[in-house]
């Protein structure tokens, strides 16, 4: 399984959100997709999910341009968007049934899968309550479950661990590793660099729509002579000194206190 992104460009009017992005992912790889806010991560993921048509460039899956038959391609993709809204008056279980039906899963299998997945995530006592009564973490669990219920080949995760408790974070990490070991393609976008460093075999760092680095984590650290991914990220992306910004912020707070 191979996913190739060639000269990808996404424009919103005059703004170039993604500019000439190129990379290739093989089955079994977990790619960390990093960048500051507005770097173009979510736009790339949306294009890879088949919901945002690129302005130019190609996305090839197993050698075929995905936009030639985007509907068939979508059946192989599981996407966890950042801050996605779920229908509030459905229960978690109903939502999984709903998404599963939209995905074409047969009724018997779907019901069994929905119940079991929600139980694994510790939602067995809450699965029949409406989603609007859920905590952020519970909603995230439903969202992740809905993205994986059809057992997709390509998994796109945009800040998937946000709001989850530490135990579920550990479980999720193991699930992601397990999916990769089964040959799935996983693209993992996040701001939490520690998790990316532990989980991903390779990272792509993007800023202002352009790829700044695309390397194996260890090799990247070696090349940038950095001890951690955080230092690599700082050296490539961060243009202002965070320590200096923090000190200015604290001074400002004290000024207010004096006044």
């Amino acid at each position, binding site marked *: 399984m191979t996913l190739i992104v060639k000269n990808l460009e996404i424009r919103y009017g005059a703004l170039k959100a993604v500019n000439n992005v190129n990379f290739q992912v093989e089955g079994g790889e977990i790619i960390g997709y990093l960048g500051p806010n507005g770097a173009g991560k979510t736009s790339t993921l949306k294009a890879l999910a088949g919901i945002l048509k690129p302005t130019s460039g190609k996305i090839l899956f197993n050698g075929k341009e995905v936009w030639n038959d985007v*509907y068939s391609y979508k059946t192989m993709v599981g996407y966890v968007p950042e801050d996605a*809204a779920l229908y*509030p008056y459905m229960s978690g279980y109903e939502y999984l049934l709903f998404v599963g039906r939209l995905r074409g899963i047969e009724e018997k299998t779907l019901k069994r899968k929905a119940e079991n997945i929600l139980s694994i995530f510790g939602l067995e006592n809450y699965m029949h309550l409406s989603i609007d009564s859920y905590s952020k973490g519970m909603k995230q669990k439903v969202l992740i479950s809905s993205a994986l219920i059809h057992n997709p080949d390509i998994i796109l995760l945009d800040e998937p661990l946000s709001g989850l408790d530490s135990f579920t974070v550990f479980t999720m990490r193991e699930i992601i590793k397990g999916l990769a070991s089964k040959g799935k393609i996983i693209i993992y976008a996040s701001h939490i660099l520690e998790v990316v460093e532990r989980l991903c075999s390779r990272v792509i760092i993007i800023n202002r729509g352009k790829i700044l680095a695309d390397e194996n984590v260890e090799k990247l650290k070696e090349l940038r002579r950095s001890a951690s991914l955080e230092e690599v990220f700082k050296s490539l992306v961060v243009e202002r000194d965070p320590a200096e910004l923090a000190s200015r912020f604290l001074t400002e707070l004290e000024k207010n206190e004096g006044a």
Partner: protein
Amino acid sequence: MRALKILTSHFFNRFFQNETIPFKEAAVAKVVSLLSILAVLSGALAYWENLKYIVAPLLFPYVAGMKETSWKENFMFLSFSMIIMGLISLIEWDEIFVKKHDLSNLSLLPIKGITIFTSKALSLAGFVGLFTFSMIIFSSPIFGLGRAKAYGNSIGLFLKISFAHGVSVFASNLFVFLFIMCLSGLLILLMGERKAEKLSVYFQAVAIVLFLSFFGIFDKLYSEVSLSNVNKLPISLFPPMWFTGLYEELVGINGEAFYKLFFKGVVAIVFLMLIFIFEYFLLYQKQTRAISRKTIHTAPMMSKIESTLNGWFFTNPLQRAIFQFIKTVMGRSRKHRLVFSLYISVVAGIFSVKIARLLYSGSFHSVFLYQFIHLFSLAIVLGFRMVVDIPWFIRGNWVFKITENNEKQNYLKGIKKSFFVLYLFPGFLVLLTLYSLLWGFKLAFMESVYGLLSSLILLELAFTKYKKIPFSCLTVPGKMNLHKFWFFYVLGIYVYTFILGFIGKLASEKEIYFLLIYFLIWVLFVVIKRSSLKKNWELVYEESPEPVVMNLGLRDV
């Protein structure tokens, strides 16, 4: 005391900030303008009714002869105010009782049950008082002036009559409000809060139409009531008459004739108050018990019918998803239910008014009864077509985008099948039952099948070029230009239903005609099916106005 004040104000404000009346911004200004309109309307009605007493004495000195009938104006005014109060109460129907989620929040605070009850009762009284105040602010002085003129210009009489008018309007409004409150309480007690909430909108819509239909008998009432028959049936059973009794008792002019009616009014209010208190405490107990009990949430029981439907009627998972979505939105969104029920209730209102006259005259084979089947089918199809265009939760629609597939026909099939299962088929079963009582089963069945088949044609036409997922698309409003073309729409509906009804009546003479009609409808159905959307069309998630609509200003935005 502080808790009572805060809670009363909270419950009172909720009358104006809820799902039905979403006055979130500038709520006070909106409520004041609503009350002003009501005050002016009531004042205008009072002025129009009392004009003859105010102006006529100047022109016609023999106006004293009108003394004996002047209570009729108050009777008419009370009928008007009770209808208006009834409509307002019906709109606020869901906010009348304390809800379970109120109690689960309040139970965490150190607030006594009696404080909750008192604050609720005060907020309800305040609500009735507020609307009564706007109804009497102009009308009471006008009534005072009119009647004082008729009986000699005395300030004492003016004040007395104004007061009597104000009190009788308040009492009549309180009666209507209590009556509707008790109905709402009964529904919740019988069905439970969740089920009652789901169904209440249909009760509300039908009751609103019934209340409005009272306006249609105003003139008849006015001409039929007289001092000699106020205590006779059926006039004496008409509630506005009881409060006219109160008015007359307070004024003291025709007191004797109205005593029994006055007594009925007082008894009715006391009786309803007792029922309300009883219902309130019963509900309170039920809800507190439900809160303190640890609830284990289990899967809602899926009926056997639903499982069977999912098995063989909705043959594809995508159709099942659309069915689930439509069922969820219509079951859980009050706004959607309200819009849909308005279509049904208009038809129900027309039917109930018309059928009473037909039953009275014994004409069971009037063209109207044949026409009504098609009016019902048109209303139900149009109502559904309109309601699917109202978005539900736009932010959740991304799920349709990421799961979109190439089997587009299944989205449409899902919509049509869901409509058939949820509304069309059950609707025609109800109609078949009603008509069987009138015509006998055989003819009722044949006419119902005819109506059902023609509804399928309408359904096909309504969704021929439909490229959306129901409730998921932001639509451009005003495309139908109702304000310009309403006459043609009404005419079209009348002509359509009349022709089909007339054909139905003709067919009822020979059964073989029905077979011919069924065959012709089937042919038409196939033709329309063939002209409907084929494969390879794009789903629309956000509708943009067509240039011609924009350029010619043919829409309201």
